[in-house]
């Protein structure tokens, strides 16, 4: 059961070995590795190509949030081992961003809990993504997603 936010890359094999070492109750280990994908925001538009991104986080709050969601996952599923390693800082296309690993006696629980954690990380963890394209830098969600996001926050305000 561990959560880490770090700038450095991680070694997937070594992390998984440490996670499962000495635990003979784990039958299935579900793992997710998120990578920086080179993509075109609008297909064919060269200037939209994402070559790298910078992830900003909120030191202190991010770790707290990750620990809370890990605790929540452990309540919902019978888990023997969980690990979240999330990088911040600048990463180029092809680099690893995040590792989520969940070990359980049963593979269904491992898969479900892993997906739960990944979905949650994508929307509820305090990270902000700055994309680098040939046309310059752009904060993700600062344009297209704004209305929807604003509505969500306004609702809470009311």
């Amino acid at each position, binding site marked *: 059961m561990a959560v880490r936010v770090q700038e450095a890359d991680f070694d997937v094999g070594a992390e998984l070995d440490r996670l499962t070492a000495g635990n003979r109750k784990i039958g299935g280990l579900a793992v997710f590795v*998120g990578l920086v994908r080179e993509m075109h925001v609008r297909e064919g538009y060269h200037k939209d190509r994402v070559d790298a991104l910078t*992830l*900003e*986080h*909120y030191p*202190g*709050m991010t770790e*707290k949030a990750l620990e809370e969601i890990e605790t929540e996952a452990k309540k919902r599923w019978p888990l023997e081992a969980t690990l979240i390693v*999330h990088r911040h800082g600048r990463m180029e296309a092809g680099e690893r*961003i*995040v590792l989520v690993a969940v070990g359980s006696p049963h593979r269904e629980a491992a898969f479900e809990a892993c997906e739960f954690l*990944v979905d949650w*990380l*994508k*929307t*509820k*963890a*305090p*990270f*902000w*993504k*700055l994309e680098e394209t040939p046309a310059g830098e752009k*904060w*993700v*969600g*600062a344009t297209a*997603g*704004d*209305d929807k*996001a*604003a509505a*969500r*926050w*306004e609702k*809470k*305000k009311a």
Partner: protein
Amino acid sequence: MKVRYFAWMKRTVGVPEEEVSPPADIATVGDLVTWLRARSPGHAEALAEGAAFGAAVDQRTATFDVKLAGAREVAFFPPFTGG
């Protein structure tokens, strides 16, 4: 009280964080937003009515009706887009 800004809000406001001493009648996160808007055009733009941002009080997500009493750190940030 320390106020922190993240992602594009940090650039719009012009500083990543600042120490502020709001008057006693600034009781909630919403009150603080209104009060901060007067500090500079950057503040006014970043914290504008209807802008897409959220808040945290002492590193826990907070809605605008949350009380500030005893808070040491308040943060404002755009919707999370990471992971």
